[in-house]
C-alpha cells in the first residue's frame, strides 16, 4: 500500500471510513475531509509521520480503515494526486452511473 510513496514528493493521507467505506482525507487540524482539495499537504518526513500516527489512532478507535499516504502535486486548487488511480479514487468514477447515466442515453435515442 505504500508503493505511492516517492521521496521528497508532497503527501496527503487517505483512509476509508469504516461504517460506509467512503474515501476520506486528513485535513488541517486532524479532521477527516471528504474532498481531496481540502486535504492537508504534508512534507515527507515528520509531518507525514505525525499524520500517519493520527490515522493509526483512528483505526484503533474504529473510525477508519485502509490508511495510506498519497503523492500529490500542489496546485492553486489544492492537492492533486500524482497517480491516475488515486485521482479516480479521490474524484469518483469517470463515467456516469445510475439514473445520471440513463438521462443522456434517453435523450440520444429519442
Amino acid at each position, binding site marked *: 500500500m505504500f508503493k505511492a510513496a516517492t521521496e521528497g514528493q508532497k503527501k496527503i493521507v487517505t483512509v476509508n471510513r469504516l461504517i460506509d467505506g467512503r474515501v476520506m482525507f486528513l485535513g488541517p487540524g486532524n479532521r477527516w475531509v471528504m474532498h481531496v482539495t481540502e486535504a492537508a499537504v504534508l512534507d515527507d518526513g515528520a509531518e507525514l509521520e505525525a499524520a500517519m500516527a493520527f490515522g493509526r489512532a483512528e483505526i484503533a478507535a474504529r473510525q477508519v480503515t485502509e490508511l495510506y499516504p498519497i503523492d500529490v502535486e500542489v496546485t492553486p486548487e489544492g492537492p492533486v494526486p500524482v497517480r*491516475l488511480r488515486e485521482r*479516480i479514487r479521490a474524484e469518483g468514477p469517470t*463515467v456516469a*452511473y445510475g*439514473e445520471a447515466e*440513463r438521462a443522456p*442515453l434517453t435523450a440520444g435515442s429519442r
Partner: protein
Amino acid sequence: MYRYDQFDHDFVNARVAQFREQVGRRLAGELTEDQFRPLRLQNGLYLQLHAYMLRVAVPYGTLSPAQMRMLAHIARKYDRGYGHFTTRQNIQYHWPALGDVPDILADLATVEMHAIQTSGNCVRNVTADHFAGAAADEILDPRPYAEILRQWSSLHPEFVHLPRKFKIAVTGAERDRAAVQVHDIGVHAKRGPDGEVGFAVYVGGGLGRTPMIAHKIRDYLPEEDLLSYMEAILRVYNLEGRRDNKFKARIKILVHEAGADAIRDKVEAEFERIRHSALFLPEDEVRRIEAYFALPELPNRSPVSPSLDRARAADAALDAWVRQNTVPHKVTGHVLATISLKPIGGTPGDATAEQMEVVADLAERYSAGEVRVSHEQNLVLPHVALDDLADIHAILQANDLATSNAGLVSDIICCPGLDYCSLANARSIPVAQKIAERFADLDRQRTIGELKIKISGCINACGHHHVGHIGILGVEKKGEEFYQVTLGGSGDEHTAIGEIIGRGFAADELIDAVETIIETYLVHRTDPGETFLAAYRRLGQAPFKEALYATA
C-alpha cells in the same frame, strides 16, 4: 425454478445472523480489519476503490420476478439506484455501507438469495448456459446439475479453504454458451447412446495471468457419479494444488505442470475409491431437483405470427431487434429474447432499479416468470411468444433496454476497471463506451456481423479478454493507461486464447486501432458470411499487423 427447502432457509438465515454479529463486533472494535476481512469476503463483501462492494450470487443465472424486484429494491434503498451484472452471472452493488449489509442480506434471504461463496478460495457460484432449459438446440437442461453442484459445494467443509478460488460451469448444448473450457471444471451434460444422461468433464481451464484451455479428462461420466467425480477432482486439487504462490495456485497450473494424463489418473483412482459412498447420486433425487426446472407450460402456437410480421414490416427498429436479439425456442411459436444491457455509450452490464423492475414485470407477464443473467452481461427473457414480441419491444424501448446489438460489435463484455476496481491498471468502461460510439450505426454493426470484443482492466481478466475475438487488456505504462490487443480468442466449443497482435496502444490511439482491425477484416473477408473470427483464423495475423503498424 428451484425453491429453498427448510434446510436451505435455515442455513441462509443462520448465515445472515452470524454475519450481523460479526459486523457488530467489527463496528464495536472487537475485530480488527485483518480479522474481519476474511469474514466479510466469505459473504461477498469487498472494499473497492471508492467504497464497499457487495457481490450477490445468481445461481446459474436464473432469477424470478420477485428476486429481480428485490435486486431493484436493494439498489434503491441501500445503494445508488443501480447494479452491475457481471461476467459470472452475478450482480454487484458498488456503494453499500458496511452497517447496512446485514439488512441487505436479510432482505435477499426473503427471496432465497445470498452472497455466500461469491468471494474467497472456495467453489464459487456455479454458472450455466443462459439459454438453458429453453434453447431449441439444447440436448438437456444443465441447471438441475448446477443446482446439485451448488448444494454439494455450499460450505462443503473440506473445500472452504482451497488453494485458490474455483469456478465450475455447466452446459447442456453442443453450442457452448457457458465457456466451459475456460473454467476450473467444465461440465458438458449430454445423452448416451440409449438416451441416458452423462457428462464430459473438462479440467484446468482458466483466464487471468496464465490463460489455459481445459483438458477433457472424461468423455462420458454417468449421471449417478457426478458428485463423486467432482469430489475426486477437488480432493486431488486440494492436496496437490500449490499454496506457496498465489499466481500458481489455480488448478490450471497443477494440470499444466503435472500433465492432464497424470491428473486424470489421480482423479480416476480417487473416484474409484469413493464412487460408492454417500456421494452416489440417486436417480429419484436427480428427478426431484429436475422437476423444479421443468419447461413451463407454453401453449402450442403457430410457427409464424402474422401480427408480428405486420408490426415488423411497419417498424424497422422492432424488425432489427427481433432479428438480432431473439433465438429459437424448444417450443414452436416462442423465442428467447436478449435484453441488451449495452446501450451505445452506456456502462456494459449496468441496470437501474427501475429497469430491473421493468424486466421483472416483463418476465411475469410474458416469460413464464423467468429472467436470466448471461455471462455476456445481458438479461434474457427465456420463454416469449412471437405474438408478444412487439409489446415487449415497445416497453423495452421506453426504458432504454431495446438496443438491437446482441452478438454485435457494441455488445461488449467489460469489467469495472479503474473506475471502480482497486486492482485495476486502466479504465475499461470508457473504452467500451468509445468503441460502441464509434460503431453506433447499427447498419454498420450488422454489416460487420458477429464480433465479440472483451475488455479487462488488469491481468485478472474478469472481462475475459483472452477469449474475445478482439481482446483488450488495460496495463499501466509510465503512469499512463495503455492497452494490449489480442485477436482470435473465443470462448465457445472451439475455445481459443487470443494472440497479442503487437505493441500496445495509448488510450487515444486505441479506438482507431480497433477500427483499423475491423476495416481490415471487412476488406479481406471472402463474403459477408465469413465472420471476423473465421477470417482471422484463415488469414492469421499478417494483414492486421500490416494495417496497424506498417505505416508507423
